[in-house]
């Protein structure tokens, strides 16, 4: 598994300005780019007019802005260019956005990325690029102003810009950017850092902008990985071993080879048990002249599998392992104050265990990839969240130098963390290498459900001590889980817990005596990053348990939270999304959602509201949910109010979309979704038994609040999800008295109330 954290802004800052490059395009426009390496490498890699820059001003005043990150539905293709366009000072309607390929360049000491980090994961794009891309735009504007001042022979201070135009008030003269482009391109990049606009002067940032590709999408012209083609390409499908870490024993491919259009059939070797995953499973590849022929050929294979080392694994045995482990002791990963003593002295002790299932990412576009391996180079077209990982995967399969492996990015039909790993790219590379021709590998939905890096599953044991005044004096969270760092290279055993428990999460630093402990469960189920990784689990557990404490100690759940979150202040936060966490920002959101849902208002029996809030990767989210639970246990979600604080809002329409989508993802996952294992095989296979939410289950009353804060943005791809599930189950408890401690909810209410 490959996960490279996006390059952060401070890294890019070092020596960056001297590498800004201005230049003329073949058509006479002006280009400005920000390569982060030396100019020699830049010129070489840019020979022949290939794209290498963020800003291009065309002779007809159109502005082309490049975007380096893949668009997976999180809106970067709109929001990143907005940052550039704002400081460049152009009309948004004049902007065309261009997706850039992977910018890998070889240097004396390894590889570097000429467009900065290009991954889409961890909600980092806006945060990392806020300074960087505004500076690209502002520097281009600076140079256009310099060009105008030179042309008019006036001091620069007498010139300013209006969208697309430099104006000199003294002379009453105006010149368009396109008229200035040629002159600007010849100027050296100014030493002095440009001055950014005031937030209050923004014309583009903070104003609702629609998805830039909207017209292409609604007319079917938008190109996803699955739509790409390459001359002479073959089509391939792989029948993968259904047993976790199983292998191929024998295959009878005689019928498959009879299927019209089938060209070749051969085995694909999977990783050894415990080894890092280059691909997920052993299998048999079928190569054909069309997708359907490949799928039909695959269906005709007769295969015997070796069941491998996990043939006895099933979901029941997984849960047994967690309870056995919780009876012992694990790795203490945080230990503040004196938990044992505080618990012993507590007036009341409250305990509960919560279960979080494995879940599948299920992006709607199934995995696919085109790879062409040639003698000394390779071309990859892939829907990926991590193009550098795609490059690395092909290098691992072929031994080609990484700089000779070109990765083209397409629009991506959903990511949710699945496409941070590029196993399907490695598979396509193996096939292309073997057949000596370009190939398009197509996964089916069944492949995608059965072969994934699932969200880790685990059992959380919570215990808290409360004193006579109702104050929480002791708190522990003990998690027995199968972590996602399993089989990742170069992770020390003592660091395995890190993506499962973020040690600075609430209530650390607020409850004095606090202990966090991790116990490792053995499982053959592959695990990875699923939208907002461990925050989905931990928000559910912590925010459910807070309500349990409130009810057990006679306190109001909202007031309990407001008291704990406290006043406006910053606490240290050492994990992703830090360096600080201000719990007051959660209070602000909670008050808003509580007000909107009429929190204090009495409701008829069976109807109630629940609330929850959570800090995720630098952003803050809260939900209030109103439900009705009938006597027979039928659940109706009456109303949802969602609020988010992601700092400065770059694109309000985009942020709301992520909040709506994240909330619905939270609802979908809480209600129905789980991956289970029977005899070493994943039981679910397609949307009929992995039932994602549909329109009819989305309440009509759905309200969102985007509440800006401060002067910096945080990402928004994940913050809208974690607090939904606990708000829902807290509402269910208030309506029915049934406490849901196991996700998904499924038919638990009906069973409990029957």
């Amino acid at each position, binding site marked *: 598994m490959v996960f490279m954290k996006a390059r952060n802004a401070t890294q890019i800052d070092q020596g960056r300005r001297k590498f800004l490059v201005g230049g003329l395009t073949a058509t006479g426009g002006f280009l400005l780019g920000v390569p982060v390496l030396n100019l020699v490498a830049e010129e070489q890699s840019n020979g022949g007019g290939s794209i290498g820059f963020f800003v291009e001003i065309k002779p007809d005043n159109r502005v082309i802005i490049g975007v380096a990150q893949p*668009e*997976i*539905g999180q*809106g970067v293709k709109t929001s990143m260019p907005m940052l550039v366009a704002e400081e460049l000072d152009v009309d948004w309607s004049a902007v065309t956005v261009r997706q850039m390929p992977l910018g890998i360049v070889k240097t004396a000491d390894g590889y570097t990325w000429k467009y900065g980090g290009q991954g889409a994961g961890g909600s980092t794009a806006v945060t990392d690029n806020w300074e960087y891309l505004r500076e690209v735009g502002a520097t281009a504007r600076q140079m256009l102003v310099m060009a105008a001042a030179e042309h008019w022979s006036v001091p620069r201070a007498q010139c300013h810009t209006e969208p697309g135009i430099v104006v000199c008030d003294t002379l009453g003269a105006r010149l368009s950017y396109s008229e200035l482009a040629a002159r600007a391109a010849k100027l050296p990049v100014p030493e002095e850092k440009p001055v950014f606009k005031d937030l209050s002067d923004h014309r583009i940032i903070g104003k*609702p902008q*629609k*998805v830039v*590709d*909207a*017209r292409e*999408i*609604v*007319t*079917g*012209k*938008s*190109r*996803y990985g*699955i*739509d790409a083609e390459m001359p002479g390409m073959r*089509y391939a499908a792989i029948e993968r071993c259904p047993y976790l870490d199983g292998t191929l024993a024998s295959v009878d491919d005689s019928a498959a080879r009879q299927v*019209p*259009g089938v060209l070749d059939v051969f085995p694909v070797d999977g990783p050894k048990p415990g080894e890092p995953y280059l691909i997920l499973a052993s299998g048999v590849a079928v190569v054909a002249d*069309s*997708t*359907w*022929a490949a799928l039909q050929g695959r269906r005709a294979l007769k295969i015997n599998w070796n069941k491998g080392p996990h043939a006895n694994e099933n979901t029941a045995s997984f849960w047994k392992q967690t309870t056995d482990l919780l009876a012992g002791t694990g790795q203490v990963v945080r230990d503040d104050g004196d938990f044992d003593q505080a618990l012993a002295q507590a007036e009341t002790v409250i305990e509960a265990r919560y279960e979080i299932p494995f879940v599948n990412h299920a*992006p*709607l*576009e*199934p995995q696919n990839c085109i790879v062409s391996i040639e003698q000394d180079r390779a071309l990859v077209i892939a829907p990926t969240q991590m193009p550098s990982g795609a490059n690395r995967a092909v290098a691992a399969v072929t031994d080609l130098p990484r700089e000779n492996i070109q990765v083209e990015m397409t*629009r*991506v*039909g*959903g*990511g*949710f963390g699945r496409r941070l790993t590029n196993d399907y790219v490695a598979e396509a590379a193996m096939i292309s290498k073997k057949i000596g021709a370009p190939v398009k590998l*197509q996964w*089916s*939905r069944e492949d995608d459900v059965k072969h994934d890096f699932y969200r880790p599953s685990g059992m959380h044991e919570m215990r808290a001590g409360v004193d006579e005044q109702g104050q929480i004096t002791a708190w522990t969270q003990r998690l027995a889980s199968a972590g996602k760092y399993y089989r990742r290279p170069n992770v020390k055993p003592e660091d395995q817990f890190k993506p499962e428990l973020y040690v600075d999460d609430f209530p650390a630093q607020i409850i004095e005596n606090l202990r966090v402990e991790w116990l490792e469960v053995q499982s053959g189920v592959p695990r990875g990053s699923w939208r907002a990784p461990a925050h989905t689990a931990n928000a559910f557990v912590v925010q459910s348990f807070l309500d349990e404490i409130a009810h057990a100690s006679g306190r109001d759940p909202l007031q309990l939270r407001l008291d704990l979150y406290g006043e406006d202040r910053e606490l240290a936060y050492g994990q992703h999304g830090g360096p600080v966490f201000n719990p007051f920002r959660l209070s602000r959101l909670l008050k808003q959602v509580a007000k909107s849902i009429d929190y204090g208002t009495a409701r008829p029996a069976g109807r109630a509201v629940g609330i929850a809030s959570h800090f995720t990767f630098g952003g803050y989210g809260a939900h209030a949910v109103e439900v009705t639970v009938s006597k027979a246990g039928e659940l109706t979600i009456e109303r949802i109010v969602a609020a988010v604080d992601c700092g400065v809002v770059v694109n309000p*329409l985009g942020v709301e*979309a*992520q909040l*709506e*989508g994240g*909330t*619905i*993802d939270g609802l*979908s996952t809480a209600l129905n979704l789980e991956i289970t294992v029977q005899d070493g095989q994943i039981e679910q296979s*397609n*949307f*009929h038994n992995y039932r*994602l*939410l*549909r*329109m*009819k289950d*989305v309440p*009509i009353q*759905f309200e969102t609040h985007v509440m800006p804060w401060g002067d910096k943005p945080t990402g928004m791809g994940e913050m809208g999800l974690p607090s939904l599930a606990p708000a829902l189950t807290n509402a269910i408890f208030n309506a029915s008295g049934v406490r849901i401690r196991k996700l998904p909810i499924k038919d638990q209410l009906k069973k409990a109330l029957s």
Partner: protein
Amino acid sequence: MIEFYVNKLPVSFEGPEDTPLLWVLRDHLKLKGSKFGCGIGSCGACTVHLDGRAKKSCTTRVSTVAGKQVTTIEGLASTDGTLHPVQQAWIDEDVSQCGYCQTGQIMSAVDLLANNSSPDDDDIAKKMNNLCRCGTYIRIRKAVHRASELMTEAD
């Protein structure tokens, strides 16, 4: 050989008769707007119109469309580029996230509106059953209402 019409143009297909219409459209006719999501008729990403009614092309054998009219997302806008009101409404309401499901959603919405020019929220919940993994349902609902208004205005 199977002959039929796609977006009013005559086409023919010579491959296996059990080939799903979806793969004929995508691999052979290079019309990539209809998407593959599940292959079992569940998600609706592959929705096209067959003789004017919404149909999932992944579970429709090409042999069953002989002589019939197939309309895909590529055939929805006018030839002069004017968008269908449903497409326009999808832009107006900024529906798309990843966008992958949206061509199928639009084909379903056109079918719904052809049979019910002003659907209420319940009608939409019943008929718009296509999956959107990104969770754009709230905006899809708004866009169907908006399209209904646009179509009424145009009449």
